[in-house]
């Protein structure tokens, strides 16, 4: 054997893959356009775009991303004041919303669509048409064999066709040969896979345009009605309309978290009563991690939780000026949590407190520092610093619930912190008091509606199915040619040539070929003289 056998015959192309783009000879006006299009839909371009896509995603995998964690982006910018503005200019903190990233995947999908349409047409034709005519020389194929027989050409071809058909090959006679093929599902699977990729993108786009996501903090004993205004934070899709929100409402009756000895969370459980609309009766449900509440197109997830101590503040004359549960935001894994208590309706000056809630409280006897050693409320305490003055609420500027505007406030008791265990009070100098009554909890919920989810799931099934067909099925072709080889001495003789090729796994195919030719030799026995 000497050189590479150039098997470039159409017969040996076992895939609808676009061929490498060659020079285009057309002298039409549209030629440059056509060339660009062929270039775009070529395998090489697809490959380069895939690499670009992977490359483009890398900064998104290392740098903090705004969509995930805006706080960390700001931290990063503070740490890298020189570099960060440049990164920001290149959208590297919003990679997956960046125009250049969109350009890459949109080009890829244009390429994909442009390459799929002709491939589907080709494959549909291949499915209808008989397997292709035998190439010129079967012995040049990766596997081949030949022998002489006394049977006539007609007998040989008929026997070969039968034998192949019984092996579930698609086999037809074409001229002096039988063409056979098996494993069409490989190409079908490949096309299903690529089409499903397009469908997946459609599903994602539908979700991004028509979907909705909102989060809300709900304290135990209070309720929530699904309306845009009631959320703390919303992310509506560009085409989302308020009317498509499911009219659900629920109340949080009880939230419970359990922890191991080491303080690691074991279970979270939010007991709610919900109704799918204003008229329906309330029904109980446990929202847990991995166990959201489904109501129509909406799903309600448990996102986070924290403590809300119940606090009573009395006025100078002893009347109750404030009696609420105050949500505190956890600062660490042991649930040291911060909150503010604002009491605007008082006789004299307005009163406010900065509070730190600690579920399992320990106080350092030397420094007086208060911390928590466990996330469960085993010995809860509220440490407060008091203020008197003007809260700035009446100015009409909505302040945050979690921070105090201290500009017109003066500290009570020179800003000393007072630790209150459950039931304890602090009599404020100058009248009034604050009491830490007991501990309740809150939970944050996320309500999502994603109308593209079903499409994406369907596409995912297509992707996996298509891939399995495309990678595990072997497509192969086989030809049996019969050539009369009379030497003019009377007895008819026929040379049987068998050749085949497979797209993958040549070893397995070689074994299969061996076995097939064995069977053919039984049906078309070699001449006595040739038998060893």
């Amino acid at each position: 054997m000497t050189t590479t056998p150039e098997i470039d015959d159409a017969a040996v192309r076992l895939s609808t893959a676009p061929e490498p783009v060659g020079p285009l000879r057309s002298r039409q006006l549209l030629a440059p356009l056509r060339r660009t299009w062929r270039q775009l839909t070529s395998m090489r371009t697809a490959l380069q775009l895939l690499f670009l896509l992977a490359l483009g995603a890398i900064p998104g995998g290392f740098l903090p991303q705004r969509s995930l964690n805006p706080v960390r982006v700001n931290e990063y910018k503070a740490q890298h004041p020189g570099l960060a503005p440049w990164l920001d200019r290149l959208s590297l903190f919003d990679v997956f919303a960046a125009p250049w990233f969109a350009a890459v995947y949109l080009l890829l999908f244009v390429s994909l669509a442009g390459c799929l349409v002709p491939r589907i047409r080709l494959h549909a034709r291949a499915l209808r048409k008989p397997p292709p005519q035998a190439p010129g020389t079967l012995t040049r194929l990766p596997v081949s064999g030949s022998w002489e027989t006394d049977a006539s050409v007609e007998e040989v071809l008929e026997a070969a066709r039968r034998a192949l058909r019984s092996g579930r090959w698609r086999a037809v006679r074409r001229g002096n040969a039988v063409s056979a093929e098996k494993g069409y599902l490989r190409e079908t699977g490949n096309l299903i896979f690529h089409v499903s990729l397009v469908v997946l993108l459609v599903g994602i786009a539908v979700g991004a345009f028509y979907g909705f996501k909102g989060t809300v903090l709900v304290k135990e004993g209070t309720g929530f009605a699904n309306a845009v205004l009631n959320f703390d934070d919303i992310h509506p899709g560009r085409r989302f309309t308020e009317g498509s929100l499911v009219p659900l409402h629920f109340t949080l009756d009880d939230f419970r978290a359990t922890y191991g000895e080491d303080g690691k969370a074991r279970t979270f459980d939010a007991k709610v009563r919900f109704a799918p609309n204003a008229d329906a009766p309330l029904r109980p449900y446990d929202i847990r991690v991995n166990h959201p509440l489904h109501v129509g197109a909406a799903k309600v997830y448990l996102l986070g939780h924290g403590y809300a101590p119940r606090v009573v503040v009395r006025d100078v004359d002893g009347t109750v000026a404030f009696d609420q549960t105050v949500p505190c935001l956890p600062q660490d894994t042991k649930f040291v949590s911060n909150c503010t208590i604002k009491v605007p309706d008082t006789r004299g000056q307005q009163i406010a407190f900065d509070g730190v809630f600690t579920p399992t409280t320990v106080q350092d006897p030397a420094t007086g520092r208060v911390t928590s050693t466990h996330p469960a409320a085993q010995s809860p305490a509220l440490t407060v610093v008091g203020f008197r003055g003007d809260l700035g609420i009446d100015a009409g500027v909505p302040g945050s619930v979690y921070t105090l505007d201290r500009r017109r406030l003066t500290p009570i008791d020179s800003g000393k912190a007072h630790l209150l265990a459950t039931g304890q009070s602090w009599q404020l100098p100058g009248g009034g008091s604050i009491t830490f009554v007991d501990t309740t909890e809150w939970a944050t919920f996320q309500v999502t509606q994603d109308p593209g989810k079903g499409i994406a799931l369907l596409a995912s099934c297509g992707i996996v199915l298509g891939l399995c067909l495309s990678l595990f099925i072997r497509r192969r072709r086989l030809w049996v040619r019969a050539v009369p080889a009379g030497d003019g001495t009377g007895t008819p003789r026929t040379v049987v040539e068998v050749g085949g090729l497979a797209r993958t796994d040549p070893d397995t195919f070689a074994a299969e070929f061996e076995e097939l030719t064995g069977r053919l030799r039984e049906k078309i026995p070699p001449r006595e003289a040739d038998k060893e």
Partner: protein
Amino acid sequence: MAHLSDSLLFAAVVVYALAMLGFAGDQATRRARRVLAEPALRAAPSRVLAGAGGPPLTEPAVSPAPSREKGWAGSLALGLTALGWLIHLGSVVTRGIAADRLPWGNMYEFSCTAALVAVTGFLVLVARGKVDRGLGAFVMLPVVLYLGLAGTVLYTKVGPLVPALNSYWIKIHVAAAVTASGAFLLSGVIALLYLVRSRFDERTVAGSAIRFPVSLGRALPAAASLDRSAYVVIAFAFPVWTFAIIAGGIWAEAAWGRYWGWDPKETWSFITWVLYAGYLHARATAGWKGRKAAWVAVAAAVALIIDYYVVNIFVVGLHSYA
């Protein structure tokens, strides 16, 4: 039980290391035999395996297929690998029993199970004649290093799962991810060896100087066979990885309310996926077959390692449970 698991892992590493030495010894004796035969072989013309559609796999006849030679050292090493595999399996199973859940809840357990998958893949492929046992030393070395690192740096005491991981989708998701990862790591090793071997062949044909690490190529199976082995392993692992990502999406949808959010872990899984898709494409693209495709497979394996180790340790995200 947890203690037993740790001891078994240690024993498995020792047995694997012995197997590695056995394989290396096997290589040495084979090489000694081959050195005598080599000058004659160099003159032989190269043979072409034309797989239409696939790459034209040139197989220079520099070395005869070493698989046909079966030295006692190789058989012993293979036996040791199988023994190590049993002990390794025992370690993973007892770990699962000790934790009372599937043993892939943290990086330590994930690594042990992925290594088990890689060794399983190697043994299966050798048994089915798809991979030459001559690869043994080169496969066992990374396995020993990997398990050694897992057992020391990543070691985690048995503990329960955090609530977000408590779902049957995670079992499916991680089972698929660990299977695909093990296979991908194996394919990465094979692709690297292919690169060494094909460079070795090239230099041999050109008659140019051969230095380390290219000289390792002498002991390796034929380039075409390595190329095919890498493909077989990736073709198996890619759908499994795809499924793992989808199962992860279904789980994320139940746990976090969105099926995809470009969390660092998700981003790196995506990069890995795209690179392996690139590998499969490259093998069907003119001008990309062979060495370029192998480099893509190596890059994809690196992305996988970043996905699991660098992201877990250095990048903050929702997945930071380990």
